[in-house]
């Protein structure tokens, strides 16, 4: 792998940028691997990278039915934050934020992590109480989060409408300054490049069609559109398709898959300095470095694998955006899309061993998995390599739905879903 640096940039500028080459290899699959990761999204690629880097497991393949980062990794609104309520959540998501802070240097790829601040608006007394509870809980866990008055919120985000005559006036906001955004495609590409450099095989256009198990029940490999590939361990990181893959191994999951939509506007000059989220009116918005407003909507109400959703969901979100930011009422929207998110009953992920020996699963990230990408891959790699969870994901088992030890962020999330 050619290292990216200021010197390399200058050298390539002299040579007409003809020497960059391919950033990751596209090898033919081997007949067997130590570990197969199903799904080359951010979480899967990060898992492979940390397996190689932290645990020395380099005989790894990441299988992807489509193209790299073509699922939810390339379809989300790129928000990063860690101001969750419960201790387990604060541990996991703040672990990710700490990795985000140095990720570009770590993988030598600019993921454009931008801690521009995530501001969550309170529109009623209940919101105010809940957010203040979050702020106190976060501070006890060492996670930054602070309360802003409406005037302070407006100062932090000038386009915000804090008129008290609004349908849902802003009564204050919770601000996590370390929160922000990153470039989603760069996260997938950067991890693929760094993993490939350490010997990991990233194999695209290779759909898993079955999971093969031996006489003792343990996994022995996967059937794919490119033939059988053997593996000692298999990690499923397939987001919305997790239930489908796990069923191939005979494991039923506590998951439901829903469409989640997002949209972008035409690009405009920089006008929006941070990320703003609103639970009550249900919208979240930021501006990409390209200039597009990136807007997230809620999930559709029905389960689906269609990667599309109803237009009324988007309209509802844009109603809220126009109410909060009247300056955008004449913006034109450029495109919208849907991703399929896998939702657990308690809205917290599952990063866990499974009843099948050698089979591991990292799923259930629901509507907010992007922010956790580095932390998720890091602890999942540990879980696979050591055959035991990292301290940070010890509570994120499948068994919690049997024991009742839920990590119930359902009511604590930033947006209703």
């Amino acid at each position, binding site marked *: 792998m050619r290292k990216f640096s200021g010197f390399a940039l200058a050298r390539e500028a002299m040579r007409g940028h003809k020497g960059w080459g391919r950033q990751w290899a596209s090898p033919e699959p081997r007949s067997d691997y130590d570990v197969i990761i199903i799904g080359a999204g951010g979480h899967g690629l990060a898992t492979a990278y940390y397996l190689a880097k932290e645990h020395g497991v380099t005989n790894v393949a990441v299988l992807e039915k489509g193209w790299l980062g073509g699922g939810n990794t390339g379809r989300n609104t790129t928000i990063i934050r860690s101001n969750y309520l419960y201790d387990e959540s604060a541990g996991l998501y703040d672990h990710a934020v700490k990795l985000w802070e140095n990720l570009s240097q770590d993988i030598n790829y600019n993921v454009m992590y931008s801690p521009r601040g995530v501001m969550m608006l309170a529109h009623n007394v209940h919101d105010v109480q809940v957010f203040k509870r979050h702020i106190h809980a976060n501070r006890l866990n060492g996670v930054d989060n602070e309360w802003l008055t409406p005037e302070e919120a407006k100062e932090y985000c000038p386009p915000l409408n804090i008129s008290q005559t609004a349908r849902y006036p802003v009564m204050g906001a919770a601000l996590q300054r370390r929160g922000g955004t990153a470039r989603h495609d760069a996260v997938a590409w950067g991890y693929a490049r760094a993993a490939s450099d350490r010997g990991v095989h990233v194999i695209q256009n290779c759909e898993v069609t079955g999971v093969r198990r031996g006489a003792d029940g343990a996994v022995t490999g996967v059937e794919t559109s490119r033939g059988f590939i053997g593996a000692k361990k298999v990690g499923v990181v397939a987001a919305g398709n997790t239930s489908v893959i796990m069923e191939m191994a005979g494991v039923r999951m*506590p*998951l439901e898959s829903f469409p989640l939509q997002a949209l972008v506007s035409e690009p405009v000059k920089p006008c929006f300095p941070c990320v703003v989220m609103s639970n009550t009116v249900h919208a979240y918005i930021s501006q990409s470095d390209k200039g597009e407003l990136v807007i997230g909507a809620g999930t559709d*109400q*029905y389960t689906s694998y*269609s990667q*599309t959703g109803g237009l009324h969901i988007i309209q509802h979100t844009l109603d809220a955006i126009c109410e909060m930011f009247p300056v955008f009422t004449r913006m034109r929207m450029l495109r919208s899309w849907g991703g399929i998110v896998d939702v657990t009953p308690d809205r917290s992920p599952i990063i866990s061993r499974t009843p099948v020996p050698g089979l591991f699963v990292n799923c259930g990230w629901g509507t907010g998995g992007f922010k956790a990408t580095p932390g998720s891959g890091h602890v999942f790699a540990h879980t696979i390599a050591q055959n035991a969870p990292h301290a940070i994901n010890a509570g994120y088992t499948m068994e919690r739905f*049997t*024991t009742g030890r839920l990590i119930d962020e359902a009511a604590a999330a930033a947006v209703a879903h």
Partner: protein
Amino acid sequence: MLLIRCPYCEEERPELEFRHAGEAHIARPENIADISDEEFAQYFFYRDNPKGMAFERWRHMHGCGRFFNAVRHTVTDKFVMTYKAGEPKPVLEEPQEGQSAP
């Protein structure tokens, strides 16, 4: 937006009038106090989440207010049929060879 036929009102109405209510034909165990934690978890938390034909409950919230069941393909989102609550789970014909699924 989906167009959904309410089997009670006997007409197709827009999705906004309805509320999706999860997987259908999940019967609450009658001996709920006796079953194991694993059995309770399967009943309460675990779901089929099929990619393909799904049996699901809907409620005509802003209409007759009643629950009913539907069969819908979760890749195309097309409804195959809706039927009243309490009616048996319909047996679906497997698509024939060379014939695409709806």
